[in-house]
C-alpha cells in the first residue's frame, strides 16, 4: 500500500513498439513524397518541409540535402530579398538542429558550407561561435574543425587568433590531433620565411617554444600519439628541390643514365629532360631501367654512334631538367669506356629527409630530453623511435651502434610492428653503408651479414660494380635494382630470395651468386629475367630448392642459353 502504480514493462514495450511503427510509416511516406515531387520538378517550399522532417531525424540522407539545394537555388530566383533572408535564417536554424542530432554528419556540415558561401553577407562571427560551441562539447570533432578552417579562411580570421584558439583547446586536452594539425598550418602563415629559405619552416625561437609545448605533452602522457606526430612535424622539413644527382655515359653500351633526387616522370623528346651533346640538343628516347613508364629515380637513353665517336678528344654531355631548373654535365674522354659526374652523397642530402636541417644544438637538446624520458619510460615506443630518428639526423655513423641497440629494444616492446622496424633498420644500415662507401671512394659495396630485410636507396648505387648482399633476410631483388647499370658481380648467397625481378637488363652483370636461398627459388621460371642480362656467364644456384627438380639443368640451359656455367 502507499505505493505508486506504474505500467509494467510489457505495456511500455508495446507502447514503444507502436510509436516506432508510426514513425517508420511517416518516414517512408515522406521520403516517397519527396522523390515524387523531385521527379515532377516541383521544387517548392513543401519539399523543404518534407525533407526537414526526414533530415531532422536522419541528417545523413545525402540525396535529400541535394534536393534542398535544388529547391533553394530555385527559390533564389523567385523570392524577394526579405523572403530569402527569412528562408536562410530558417535553414541555418534547421542545420543547427540537425547538427545537434548528429554533430558528425558530413552532409549537414557540407550543406552549411554551401549555404554560407552563397550568402551575400554571411555572419562569420556567428559561425565561429557555433564551432566553438560544438568543440566545447567534443574537442576532437574533426568535421567541426574542418568547418572552422573553412570559416576562418572565408572570414580572413587572423592566424594569431586561430592559434590562440588552438592553444585554449590544447590546454584543455592536449590529445587533439586536429588542434595540433591546425597549429602546423597556422604557424608557417604567422612566421613566413624569406623566399630563399626553406618553406614551411619556423624561426628558431618559435620552434623552441613549440618544442617545449609538445614536450610538456609527451612527458605528461608519452603514450599519446598526437603529441609525437606534432613533434615529428616540428622537426621535419619540406621536400628538397628536385635535383640531378648523377650522370653516367657508357661507350660500350652507347647509353646515358641520369638519376634524380626523387622519382620523376620523363617524357620522350626534349620537353622535360633536354640532352645536349657537345653543345647541341639531341632528341632521344628516355626510358626506365625496368622498362616501366612510371615515375622513377633513374632514366636512361641510347646514344647514336656519332655522339660517341673517337674523333674528338672528348665529348661533352649536358642534361637539363626543364621543370626544375637543374642540370648536370659530364665528359667522356677519348679512349675511356665511361664517364660520369655525381654529387657525393652526403648524409644531409640522403638521409635527413625525415628530420630537419635545424641547428644540431636544437636536435641535440631534443635528443637529451627524449633520453631523459626514455629512462623514466624505458618501454615507450614513441620515445624510442624518436630517439632513433634524432640520432640519424644528428650523425648516422657516430650513433650507428647505439641506434641498433635502440632498434632491438623497440622491437621487443612493440612486436606488432617488428617487420616495419626491420625494414626501417635495413634502410638505415644501407644508408650508413653507402655513406662509408662514399667516403672510401670505391665502387664495391659490402652489405653481408646485416640482417637486411629490404633494399632501398638503390638509385644511389648507379656506379657500383660489385655488390655483396649475402647472409641477409632478403626475399626479393626489387625492380629498382635494374638501376645498377655498372654492376658486374652480384652476391646474394644465403637469403630467402623468391623473386629476381630486379635482375633485368643489367648490361654488365657477369656473375650472379644465389647459393643457399633455401626458402625461395622453387621454379626455373623465377630465373626468366636473367635472360635479359647479356653478359651473364656464371650463375650459382647451389642449395636452392629448384636444384632438386628432375631435368633442371636442361631446363635452365634452355632458359638461359648465354650463361656458360650454371652451378646447381
Amino acid at each position, binding site marked *: 500500500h*502507499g*505505493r505508486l502504480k506504474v505500467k509494467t514493462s510489457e505495456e511500455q514495450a508495446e507502447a514503444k513498439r507502436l510509436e516506432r511503427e508510426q514513425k517508420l510509416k511517416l518516414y517512408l511516406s515522406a521520403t516517397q513524397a519527396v522523390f515524387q515531387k523531385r521527379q515532377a520538378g516541383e521544387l517548392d517550399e513543401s519539399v523543404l518541409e518534407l525533407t526537414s522532417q526526414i533530415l531532422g531525424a536522419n541528417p545523413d540522407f545525402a540525396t535529400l540535402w541535394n534536393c534542398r539545394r535544388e529547391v533553394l537555388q530555385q527559390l533564389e530566383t523567385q523570392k524577394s530579398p526579405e523572403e530569402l533572408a527569412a528562408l536562410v535564417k530558417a535553414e541555418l536554424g534547421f542545420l543547427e538542429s540537425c547538427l545537434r542530432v548528429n554533430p558528425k554528419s558530413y552532409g549537414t556540415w557540407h550543406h552549411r558550407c554551401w549555404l554560407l558561401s552563397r550568402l551575400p553577407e554571411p555572419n562569420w562571427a556567428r559561425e565561429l561561435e557555433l564551432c566553438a560551441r560544438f568543440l566545447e562539447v567534443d574537442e576532437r570533432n574533426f568535421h567541426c574543425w574542418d568547418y572552422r578552417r573553412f570559416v576562418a579562411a572565408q572570414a580572413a580570421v587572423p592566424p594569431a587568433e586561430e592559434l590562440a584558439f588552438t592553444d585554449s583547446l590544447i*590546454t584543455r586536452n*592536449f590529445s587533439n590531433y586536429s588542434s595540433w594539425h591546425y597549429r602546423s598550418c597556422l604557424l608557417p602563415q604567422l612566421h613566413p620565411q624569406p623566399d630563399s629559405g626553406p618553406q614551411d619552416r619556423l624561426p628558431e625561437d618559435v620552434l623552441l617554444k613549440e618544442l617545449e609545448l609538445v614536450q610538456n605533452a609527451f612527458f605528461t602522457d608519452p603514450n599519446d600519439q598526437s603529441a609525437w606526430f606534432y613533434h615529428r612535424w616540428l622537426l621535419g622539413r619540406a621536400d628538397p628541390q628536385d635535383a640531378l644527382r648523377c650522370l653516367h655515359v657508357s661507350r660500350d653500351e652507347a647509353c646515358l643514365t641520369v638519376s634524380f633526387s626523387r622519382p620523376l616522370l620523363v617524357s620522350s623528346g626534349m620537353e622535360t629532360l633536354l640532352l645536349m651533346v657537345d653543345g647541341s640538343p639531341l632528341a632521344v628516347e628516355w626510358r626506365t631501367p625496368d622498362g616501366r613508364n612510371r615515375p622513377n629515380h633513374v632514366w636512361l637513353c641510347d646514344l647514336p654512334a656519332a655522339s660517341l665517336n673517337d674523333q674528338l678528344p672528348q665529348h661533352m654531355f649536358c642534361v637539363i631538367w626543364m621543370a626544375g631548373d637543374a642540370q648536370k654535365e659530364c665528359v667522356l674522354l677519348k679512349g675511356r669506356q665511361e664517364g660520369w659526374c655525381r654529387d657525393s652523397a652526403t648524409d644531409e642530402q640522403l638521409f635527413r629527409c625525415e628530420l630537419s636541417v635545424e641547428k644540431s644544438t636544437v636536435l641535440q637538446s631534443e635528443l637529451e630530453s627524449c633520453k631523459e624520458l626514455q629512462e623514466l619510460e624505458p618501454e615507450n615506443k614513441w620515445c624510442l623511435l624518436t630517439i632513433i630518428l634524432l640520432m640519424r639526423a644528428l650523425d648516422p655513423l657516430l650513433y650507428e651502434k647505439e641506434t641498433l641497440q635502440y632498434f632491438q629494444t623497440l622491437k621487443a616492446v612493440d612486436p606488432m610492428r617488428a617487420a616495419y622496424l626491420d625494414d626501417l633498420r635495413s634502410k638505415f644500415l644501407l644508408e650508413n653503408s653507402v655513406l662509408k662507401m662514399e667516403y672510401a671512394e670505391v665502387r664495391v659495396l659490402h652489405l653481408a651479414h646485416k640482417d637486411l630485410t629490404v633494399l632501398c636507396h638503390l638509385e644511389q648505387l648507379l656506379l657500383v660494380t660489385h655488390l655483396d648482399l649475402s647472409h641477409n633476410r632478403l626475399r626479393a631483388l626489387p625492380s629498382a635494382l635494374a638501376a645498377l647499370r655498372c654492376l658486374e658481380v652480384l652476391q646474394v648467397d644465403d637469403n630467402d630470395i623468391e623473386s629476381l625481378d630486379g635482375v633485368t637488363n643489367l648490361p654488365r652483370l657477369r656473375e650472379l651468386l644465389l647459393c643457399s636461398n633455401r626458402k625461395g627459388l622453387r621454379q626455373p621460371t623465377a630465373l626468366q629475367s636473367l635472360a635479359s642480362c647479356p653478359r651473364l656467364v656464371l650463375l650459382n644456384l647451389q642449395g636452392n630448392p629448384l636444384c632438386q627438380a628432375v631435368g633442371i639443368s636442361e631446363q635452365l640451359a634452355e632458359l638461359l642459353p648465354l650463361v656458360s656455367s650454371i652451378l646447381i
Partner: protein
Amino acid sequence: MANNLPSEFDVIVIGTGLPESVIAAACSRSGQRVLHVDSRSYYGGNWASFSFSGLLSWLKEHQESSDAVNESPTWQEQILENEEAIALSKKDRTIQHVEVFCYASQDLHEDVEEAGALQKNRAPLTAVNPTEAADSVFLPKEDESLSTVSCEIPAEQPPSSNPESAPEVNDVEAVEEKENDGNDKTCVQATSEKETGENVPTAENTAEQPKKNRITYSQIVKEGRRFNIDLVSKLLYSRGLLIELLIKSNVSRYAEFKNVTRILAFRDGRVEQVPCSRADVFNSKQLTMVEKRMLMKFLTFCMDYEEHPDEYKAYEEMTFSEYLKTQKLTPNLQYFVLHSIAMTSEATSTTIDGLKATKNFLRCLGRYGNTPFLFPLYGQGELPQCFCRMCAVFGGIYCLHHSVQCLVVDKDSGKCKAIIDQFGQRIISKHFIVEDSYFSEKTCSNVQYRQISRAVLITDRSVLKADSDQQISILTVPASKPGTFAVRVIELCSSTMTCMKGTYLVHLTCTSSKTAREDLEPVVQELFTPYTETEIENDEGKKPRLLWALYFNMRDSSDISRNSYNDLSSNIYICSGPDCGLGNDNAVKQAEALFQQICPNEDFCPPPPNPEDIVLDGDSLQPEPSESSSILQTNSETPKESPYLGNQEEPSE
C-alpha cells in the same frame, strides 16, 4: 495547530540532518508513512547553512545560557503503567567554544540591517538585530566546558549580556589592544567614504572598482542574504556515494553544483596550485618535464594499484609517506601526493590507506571537471533539504520547530511505540530514527565523543591570485606537530552563492585537539592577516585580509557504537551528526544501513517513475511525483510551504 497531525506513522524521524533526511526520503519513497520533525526552526541541524544574520542568530542561541527549558514535564502524566519514557534533550549540547572576531571597520550607523531580511526571510530567526549580535564577541556559557574559554577573554571585554545598551563599541571587537587602536583611528575616515559611496549599489561597486575594495561590517550585514554559511564544510566526491544517490534517486534535480576549480598546497609559507589532472600537469609551469612524468606515472599506477601488488607489497607495513619516499618522486611531488591528493595523515596512514585515497581521488577526477569535487550552490545545507523535498513529494509530513519530549517504550515488548511531542500529542509509530544530539545526557552518559574544530572566515581576496577571481579551492595544511591534525581549508567565491561579491568565505576544519580557536588560529595567522585600513594602498601580493572570523567546536558523533548509548529499544535507530571527513559517504552509508534494517529487501531510493507510466485509476488516486501538481495528500506539501513552518517567525525564546 498540532491537532491536525495524524496520530499514527510507520516511521518517525527526529532531526533533519543529512542522514536523517536521506532515510526519510528512502522510507517515504518505498511507501512508508513518514513524520519528520526537527526542534529547530530550520532544516539540517548541524548540517545547515545560514545567511549572515541567520548565523548571528544561531550564534546568539549557542552563546546564551539556556535555562528556559526547565518547564514542568507535562508528558509524565501520559505515561501508562506498562510504559517507560526516554526523555529527549531540550538543549543542543553539540556546539561549544564559540568565538567571534570582527576586523572590518564598523559603521557608526546603528540601524544597519540585512536587506530584505524582514520581507522574505530565509533565515529562520530574525528577532536579533544583527549588529548587536556581532557586538557580542562571545558569551561565556554556564556550561562547565566553556569555563576555560572565558578566561581567554581580553580584560577590557565586557560580556554583552545586554546588547541593546552597547551600541558602537569598537573596543568590543578588538582581539588585541593594538588592532583596536588601528581600528579607532581609521574608523571615521572609513565611515565618511562609506557615505559617499552609499548611492552606488555595493556589489557593483566592489566588482568594478577593486581599488575601493573596502568592505565594512555594515556592508556584510546589509548584504547578509548573499551569504550561505555552512556549519559543516564538506565537498562531494564526484563519484562518491552521495553523488550516486543524488543521481539514482533523481534528487539531483533539486540542487545545482559547481566544480571545485583548484587543489592547493601550502608549503614553505607559500600557497601553490597542485596539478592533479592530466591537463593540469600538462599546463603546469612549476613542474619540470621530468617531474611531470614522475607524477603522471605514479598517479597512473595508483589508478589500478591493486593489479601491481609487487610494486607496494613490500611497503605495506610502512606509512604512506615512507612509501612515497621509496618511489621516484621529488620531495615536491611527495608533498603534493601525500597532503593534497591522498589527503592522509603523514604519521599514521599506511601505504594501503594512501593508495586507496589516491585512487579514490583520481577515480573522481574528470567526471565533472578538472578536480574530483563538487560544491552545492547555496551551501551544503541545501542537500538535506533536497531529500526532505523528495520525502514530502512522496507523502512525508514535515514539522519544523516541533520538539519531541520523549519516546514511549512498551515495558513488555521492550519496543518503542510512540512519541509525545511538545504539545503533549502522542504519535504512534513502528520505527524511530533519532539524531544523536536529541538524546539526553542520561542516554549518552557513556558515549565518548570526539570534537570537530571549525572556523568560518570572511576575507577580501583569495589565498592564491588567479586569472579568474571566481575560484573554489581546497587546501590541506598538514599537522604542525604530533598530536594535532591536518587542517582542511575550503575557500568559496561569491559565485557559489555563499558570500557577497568581493568577498570569500573560508571554512577551516580539523579534528579537535583543543578548542577550535587554539587548533585553527595558527593556520589562520599563516594564511591571512587581520583587516586594517592602512594597508590598503600597496596591497599586491599580500595575504588576504580577514574581515570577520568565527570559531566553534562541533560534536563529532560519527562511528559510535550503538551499545554505548544507554537503554535503547531495538526500533530506535541512531543517526550521527556530521563527521569530520571531507566527503559525505559516512552519512549515506549510515542512511542506507538503517533503511535496510527498517525496510529489508527494499530498493534504496530508486528513481521515481516516469510521469507517463503512472497509472491513475479511480479512487485509489496516487500522487504524481512532480511538484507542479500542487495537491498531493492533505499534508504532503513540499517542505518549504509546509504549514508547520508557520511559527518560524516567532522568536525562539
